[in-house]
């Protein structure tokens, strides 16, 4: 299982395959070249000239580094943090020398300030490693917090009491169904109480949703109808737990409970290349009156998605005339073999 908090290397070293991390590296490197060019030049045209000259050397180094780090990501994460840092610095040094050597071959003349580029390269590497170290340190309490929030936001007392009531009402008339319902409740609460920092396979989340909806169907009967489209879902895709379940809870609370008429909640999960899409829809009436809670749950889920996937995940909510839709996109990440 991929974990965010397994060992210090995993927490301090960034995930080099994450798009957000790659972007951050490239943006910071480019910003540093701009500063270097400004320091070396006095006029505007001089600045551009300088900057192009610097970029011509630095950009190939940067791109090669991003590719190399991305490729060796999982291997680096298995090393000890110090060893990984030393290795990365040497790798950067090697890339820099290689690019300079290659440049010299093309230009057929030795680069005059090769030494400066080597220094620039090592310094930037250290700055970036330090930056990601600090950033991850800053975010790790946020991850702990996210776990807590996940707990607090999930256990809606409304749902707990309703389920207990539903089970109580079954005990005399239908003891077997009452048993099944209690088993569902136990599973549900096991997940609710678990340490939810770790990513878990999508199929677990879907199973949890089924158990949750079975409980809701006990008390709502025909009023709650569910339309599953999950045959093509990537079962092994990893995601933060308790992302879909609370959204379904919202769907039932806002879409089904306020009406006597039956309503359909639809769940649609599929993947397109490297992205997993999860689309939930429920009926919605404009005069519904509980909105603050809904936004809080969405904010909480959005935050947790961002903590795990950075810019690669998104959550969009759309209010139609008679329908409410939440569309979540996450990268298709599988568990390590």
């Amino acid at each position, binding site marked *: 299982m991929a974990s965010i908090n397994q060992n210090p290397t995993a927490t301090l070293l960034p995930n080099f395959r994450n798009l957000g991390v790659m972007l951050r590296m490239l943006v910071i490197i480019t910003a540093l070249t701009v500063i270097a060019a400004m320091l070396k030049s006095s006029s505007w045209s001089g600045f551009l000239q300088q900057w192009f000259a610097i970029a011509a050397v630095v950009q190939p180094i940067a791109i090669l580094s991003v590719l190399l780090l991305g490729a060796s990501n999982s291997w680096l994460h298995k090393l000890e943090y110090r060893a990984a840092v030393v290795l990365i610095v040497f790798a950067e040094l090697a890339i820099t020398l290689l690019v300079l050597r290659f440049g010299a071959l093309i230009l057929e003349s030795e680069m005059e300030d090769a030494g400066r580029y080597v220094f620039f390269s090592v310094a930037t590497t250290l700055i970036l490693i330090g930056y990601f170290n600090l950033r991850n340190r800053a975010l790790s309490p946020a991850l702990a917090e996210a776990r807590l929030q996940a707990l607090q936001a999930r256990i809606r007392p*409304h749902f707990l009491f309703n389920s207990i009531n*539903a089970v109580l*009402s079954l005990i005399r008339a239908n003891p077997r169904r009452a048993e099944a319902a209690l088993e569902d409740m136990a599973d549900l609460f096991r997940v609710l109480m678990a340490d939810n920092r770790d990513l878990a396979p999508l199929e677990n989340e879907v199973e949890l949703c089924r158990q949750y909806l079975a409980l809701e169907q*006990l*008390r709502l009967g025909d009023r709650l109808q569910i339309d599953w489209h999950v045959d093509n879902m990537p079962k092994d895709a990893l995601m933060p737990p308790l992302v879909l379940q609370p959204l379904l809870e919202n769907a039932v609370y806002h879409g089904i*409970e306020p009406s*006597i008429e039956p309503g359909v909640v639809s769940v649609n999960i599929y993947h397109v290349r490297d992205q997993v899409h999860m689309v939930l829809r429920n009926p919605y009436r404009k005069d519904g009156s509980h909105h603050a809670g809904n936004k809080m749950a969405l904010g909480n889920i959005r935050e947790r998605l961002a903590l795990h996937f950075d810019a690669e995940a998104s959550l969009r909510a759309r209010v139609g005339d008679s329908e409410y839709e939440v569309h979540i996109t996450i990268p298709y990440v599988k568990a390590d073999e």
Partner: protein
Amino acid sequence: MTKHPQALKVVITDDETPARSRVRDLLEDCASSFPIELVGEAASGRELLALLAKTPADVVLLDIRMPEMDGLEAAQHLLKLPDPPSVIFTTAYDDYALKAFELHAVDYLVKPIRLRRLHDALTRARAITPLSLDVLQRIAPEPRKHLSVQERGKVMLIAVSDIRYLRAELKYVTVRTATREHLVEESLSRLEQEFTDQFVRIHRSCLVAKAHILGFEKDAMEPGESHWTVMLNGLDEKLPVSRRQQHIVKEFGRNLL
């Protein structure tokens, strides 16, 4: 649950089937110690009112959170009945309502309902002081969706969304819908407070439904002194806007109403 002449007539109101069957089971248990007759079950406030029009009851066990018409609103309409039943609210979890109930000494049972508690509540039921409209209005967190009038021993409901205007008469308020007029015994200022989002005052004695305003027209019947009138969807009548309330004409134009 035998048909004892002095049996306590009970109605269960809950939108969830298992919740109703659980109360039914518990009532059966209570029936062993004193006579109880379950006269009906309802799945919404509306159904409850229809049921009570036909079958009088002594006690109503009333769930709070229900679609279409919640328990707090249903309890207010109940009071229009010639001989309103005692109300015992039931609720799964609603911190707000529980606080309000404690404050106003309203009877309630927390779900899951315990046999002992239900037993006690029903024993007391005949002595329960009837709820006052005043208290219920203070407890209800949201405006009602209906107004109600008593007609020939029945409670008649008027959907608030159908109302075109409310006009104060001497002791009553006239409620005008597209099709007819009703008289309700409520105060206009109270109604204005409750429905402040849906209605706007155009005159000292008149509130109109914002959603039904078609537009405003200058009425120059009397020479020299023209004033604004409001036109409402589905009504031929034009209602005068008082001088003091003329700012609403501008607000309507800017979509601020």
